[in-house]
């Protein structure tokens, strides 16, 4: 159905190009369930805007971040998107860090011809919504097979347990990918258990997988549950370690899991590891630590930072803040070095980030264990 695709907003965007600041909207939660992601993304975005503005801005204009909170609610997310576009007249939106709200917000951005760059949505069906929609994340579709292969070939895992958080779209999607990868690598899933986000009690699931003696645990949920899950696993005497996606990447994992997550592995396109980081990333980490009492940035802040930088570079290349123009340049991004890795947008605008970092928890800290190149 081609109905309802009104284009009356084109003129308002032209008006936005005329000011002396470039407005970029933040779409995310500061309150509610997903507040942690939103808050971190915003921190990164603000740091990027500061850096850009200190260096003279973009095309002679300063970047301004317009923030709004949607409280982790889809409905409000769409309202905020609409508000950012029509009232605040942003030229681009960074967000939402979660796939669900991104999927609800992206059609609005697409219809209004405003670029939406998610700094966190990793689920399927995001960039397909339209040619104004981007994301700068490491895709699980790329990383999960690479990591599965890695644990199989390098660590010799044959039997794994797979844990999914059923009310978490990210986790459900990731588990699908892992299930496929495990099969392709000739490994076996000996136990599958589901949990739910914000569960605290995993004794039943652990008891259920313990007897199956898996070589390792693939955990596709988030860090809070991951830490607690491993805690329970150790409590019940399981020795196997856990591997999971960037949903596990946070200091909270260690806070929750303590010794129990020692040896756990996490893949990601961003590692806040100063020892291995390049100059750019190192500077980002330092700056972040300075502004946040010494805590390390997580991938959301890094990706938020990169998102704004990507947009700025695209605007510079297009010499324009008109989304219709700079989105073309954005789509052309190739081997772009960001703080969260090297990014190339493929023809379908899906990002390719390489290498995949495999981190492991050692002495209560994330350390890069290995890197896997992906094509």
């Amino acid at each position, binding site marked *: 159905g081609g109905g309802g695709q009104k284009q009356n907003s084109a003129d308002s965007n032209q008006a936005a190009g005329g000011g002396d600041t470039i407005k970029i909207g933040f779409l995310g939660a500061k*309150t*509610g*369930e*997903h*507040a*942690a992601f939103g*808050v971190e993304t915003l921190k990164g975005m603000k740091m990027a805007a500061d850096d850009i503005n200190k260096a003279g801005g973009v095309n002679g204009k300063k970047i301004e971040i317009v923030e709004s909170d949607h409280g982790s609610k889809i409905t409000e997310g769409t309202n905020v998107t609409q508000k950012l576009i029509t009232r605040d007249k942003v030229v681009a939106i960074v967000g939402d860090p979660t796939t669900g709200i991104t999927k609800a917000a992206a059609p609005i951005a697409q219809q209004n011809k405003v670029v939406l760059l998610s700094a966190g949505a990793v689920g399927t069906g995001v960039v397909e919504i339209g040619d104004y929609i981007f994301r700068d994340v490491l895709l699980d579709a790329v990383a999960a097979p690479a990591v599965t292969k890695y644990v199989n070939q390098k660590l010799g895992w044959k039997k794994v347990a797979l844990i999914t958080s*059923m009310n978490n779209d990210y986790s459900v999607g990731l588990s699908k990918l892992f299930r496929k990868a495990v099969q392709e690598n000739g490994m076996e899933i000996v136990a599958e*258990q*589901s*949990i*739910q986000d*914000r569960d*605290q*009690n995993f*004794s*039943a*699931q652990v*008891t*259920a997988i313990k*007897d199956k003696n898996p070589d390792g645990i693939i955990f596709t949920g988030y860090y*809070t549950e991951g*830490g*607690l899950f491993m*805690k329970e696993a150790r*409590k*019940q005497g399981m020795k196997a370690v856990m591997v999971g996606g960037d949903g596990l990447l*946070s200091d*909270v994992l260690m*806070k*929750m899991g*303590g010794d129990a997550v020692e040896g756990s592995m996490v893949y990601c396109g961003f590692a806040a590891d100063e020892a291995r980081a390049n100059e750019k990333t190192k500077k980002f980490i330092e700056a972040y630590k300075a502004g946040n009492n010494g805590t390390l940035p997580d991938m959301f802040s890094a990706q938020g930072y990169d998102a704004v930088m990507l947009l700025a570079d695209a605007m510079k290349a297009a010499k324009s803040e008109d989304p219709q123009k700079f989105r073309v340049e954005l789509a052309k991004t190739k081997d772009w070095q960001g703080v969260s890795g090297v990014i190339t947008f493929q023809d379908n605008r899906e990002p390719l980030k390489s290498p995949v970092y495999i981190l492991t928890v050692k002495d209560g800290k994330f350390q890069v264990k290995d890197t896997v190149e992906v094509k």
Partner: protein
Amino acid sequence: MLTQQLLNGITLGATYALIALGYTMVYGIIQLINFAHGEIYMVGAFIGVLMVSVFHQGLLISLCAAMAFCMIMGVAIERVAYRPLRRSTRLAPLISAIGVSIFLQTLMTKIEGPQAVAFPHVINDSLYHMGAIEISKIQLIILVVSSLLMLGLHFIVKYVKIGKAMRAASEDYDTAALMGINVNRVISFTFAIGSALAAAGGVLVGMYFNSVAPLMGVLAGLKAFCAAVLGGIGSIPGAMLGGLFLGVAETLGVAGGFDLYKDAIAFTMLIVVLLFRPTGLLGRPIQRKV
């Protein structure tokens, strides 16, 4: 393995029961589903964390501090948000309670950040073996503490005059007052006890599952509430039974492979029980006399 799961379930159920008691007591006396109760539990857990990590207190003192704090908080909430609504429609305080609950959630998110906070170590993870069953020290503590608290409560309500005053006030404030009952005090007392139990539940759960978060009260509160209904809302032994029942059923459900439908199982059971016993397991059937 089954007995092990059973034990896990009982431990979980004991904490549900602690929270459920507050729901049941408050409901029993002012017929209010106190949706802010889950948030009291959450605040209790945070106070526990604070006592242990900042003031370096042991479990007992932290537990008592959390209970005392929440006692005051519960009483204050009743004063501010429910008492002015005592004589209005039944649903008015309910909405007020939802308001309080939203307020406390966001306040706590503001103070502590949205992420879960780890509960610092106060108890070592030592395991005791009893035949095939392993019981951790924490589980043991939970079982002991919650049993003691519930016994205490049972005693107070059953054998002390205030228990009867609570029942009388629950029916008719005015007539209860005409008996010389200080209705406000009885209601405050109810909130105090209920909140203290919730706080104890919060600290114990935080310790057991090692994490405390601003939104932890939502689901726990809801489930505890279901436990209260399951047992027969308003009935104190009912809340205990309902809590245990729910905890065990949930744990066994997950273990039995119904993990996908875990919450659905709990609620389906609730509906089924209600259909056959419309006032819960231990609820008194409603008499129809015209």
